[in-house]
């Protein structure tokens, strides 16, 4: 009796966390498939759900707004990842040179990442306002015309990318800084003695050694941008029309703006597939780099 109780002890300690995670994370994820195969809307939410097979998928594939959302996602994710990575890398490398106050700068630079997406969204909505926004005022001062940052279907996604850059870049800075810390300074010393310029040693020493960090960073910020929609919801609500509606926001709008829960769930299913591909590549790369990262990271 006592033996079996002792044997069960670790499991009992894990049960509370596991129960919550299974109920609110794993079960909904799987149940989403069931919802995608039925017809559930805000009006039938408590009633009987009709089985419709793959009808939701079929109608989604013919939905022009969904096609738009895939295209918007592509630009939003591509632009966000490129900007965040490029700027994050430059700032991380610059901070890694021996400069006074680099810790203070790091602390300040991380602030945008600690504030919520809602706050970021509102702040940039204010800054990018067509009529009284400070960005247009600045442009006017140097003789450039006002730009319709958030109401022109052609520019709106880029305004969102800038806001997302502000919010998300600190993560890349910190993640790559951790990577740069892991490189032994002796290798730079050796390269310097051999006559390599700073630029050359960055290209031939830093980048290859940083590779595992770079890959993981890129996958994480990609996944993050694919799923991120609260910022967009606050800034533009996906508009004008669907011109700034990414696929994840499309899922939200179908379900909670138009009440088509099953249609939303079907989009969710497609998003799950995208995430699985990203997560799988992440896990694989993480496993192959596991040892080196673990040591460097701690």
């Amino acid at each position, binding site marked *: 009796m006592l033996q079996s109780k002792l*044997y069960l*002890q*670790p*499991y009992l*300690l*894990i049960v509370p*966390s596991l129960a*919550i*995670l299974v109920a609110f*994370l*794993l*079960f*909904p*994820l799987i149940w989403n498939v069931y*919802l995608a195969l039925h017809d559930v809307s805000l009006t039938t*939410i*408590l009633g009987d759900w009709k089985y419709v097979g793959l009808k939701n998928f079929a109608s989604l594939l013919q939905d022009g707004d969904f096609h738009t959302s895939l295209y918007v996602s592509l630009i939003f994710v591509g632009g966000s990842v490129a900007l965040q990575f490029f700027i994050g890398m430059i700032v991380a490398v*610059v*901070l890694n*040179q021996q*400069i006074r106050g680099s810790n203070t*700068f790091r*602390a*300040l*630079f*991380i*602030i945008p*990442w*600690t*504030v*919520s*997406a*809602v*706050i970021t969204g*509102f*702040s*940039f909505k*204010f800054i990018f*306002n067509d*009529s*009284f926004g*400070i960005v247009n*005022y600045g442009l006017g001062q140097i003789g450039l015309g006002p730009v319709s940052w958030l109401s022109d279907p052609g520019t709106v996604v880029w305004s969102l990318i800038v806001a997302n850059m*502000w919010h998300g870049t600190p993560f890349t800075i*910190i*993640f790559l800084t*951790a990577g740069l810390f892991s490189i032994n300074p002796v290798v730079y010393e050796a390269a310097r003695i051999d006559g390599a310029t700073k630029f050359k040693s960055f290209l031939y020493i830093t980048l290859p050694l940083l590779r595992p960090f770079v890959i993981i960073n890129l996958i*994480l910020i990609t*996944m*993050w941008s694919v799923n*991120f*929609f*609260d910022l967009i*919801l606050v800034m533009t609500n996906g508009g004008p029309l669907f011109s700034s509606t990414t696929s994840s926001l499309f899922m939200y709008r179908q*379900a*909670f703006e138009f009440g088509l*829960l099953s249609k939303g769930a079907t989009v969710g299913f497609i*998003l799950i597939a995208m*995430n699985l591909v990203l*997560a799988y590549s992440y896990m694989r790369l993480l496993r192959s780099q596991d040892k080196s990262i673990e040591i460097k990271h701690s």
Partner: protein
Amino acid sequence: MILLERSLIYFVIATYLFITLAPLLWVLSTSFKPNSEAISFPPQFLPDAPTMDNYVFVLTDPKLAISLLNSLVVSLASTGLSVAVSALAGYAFARFEFRAKNLLISFILGLFMIPVVINIIPLYIMLANIGLLNSLIALVLTFQILIIPLNIFLLKNYFETIPKELEEAALIDGCSKLHAFLHVIVPISMPGFLIAAILSFRFSWNEFVLPVVLSNRPDAMVFQVALYQFISLYRIDWGYLTAGINIALVPVVVLMLFFQKKMIRGLTLGAVRG
């Protein structure tokens, strides 16, 4: 050459510092202006006559004040719950050897990779069917999925840094393992709990997607949602909104700057969640 390099470095830092701080300072300055001046054009960099009216409005408006209180209650409750259950699990992983250990660790890591956003529709239908929509309890429970996995790994790592001899002494004295956990490990793990608690608070306080879907009735609304629903949906009063932004921002930024170094590592871990 050195001079050129130095100036380039400081140019990059100054530019990025400006990009980082300018939006925040602009919002801060606006929050002290009356509503009419907030949207004046050309913009006024500093308020003519600084006023606290916007802050007074946000803090005394019944709906907003309730939402602020709700945010505080939900964040503290979900922090408490997640640190408690994660501590138990983290302890099991740090100190016990059992058959499914590695499997369970990978399982929780795998769950950690699921983006919460994808779950909003099933969660909404689920909670509608058990009558828990628009309740703070639903928020406390669903917020757990944002933070439990992170806390388990943080606390597991923390417990592993504590020498085993400490508990062994207690066990020899006849304590049970659980007793040793409560009376030996818990008291000396306070720094670890503090970090986990601050991170949990930050995630709960900032969360918007789950509450905007699961709880948008005025009495059960959290502050981030209230900013979106009351101040901005129809006509934006930028003075009020910027004051609200700063009120929402203060707790996390203060905690962050205060515990900077330790937070960064935890947040980097937590970023998987995004």
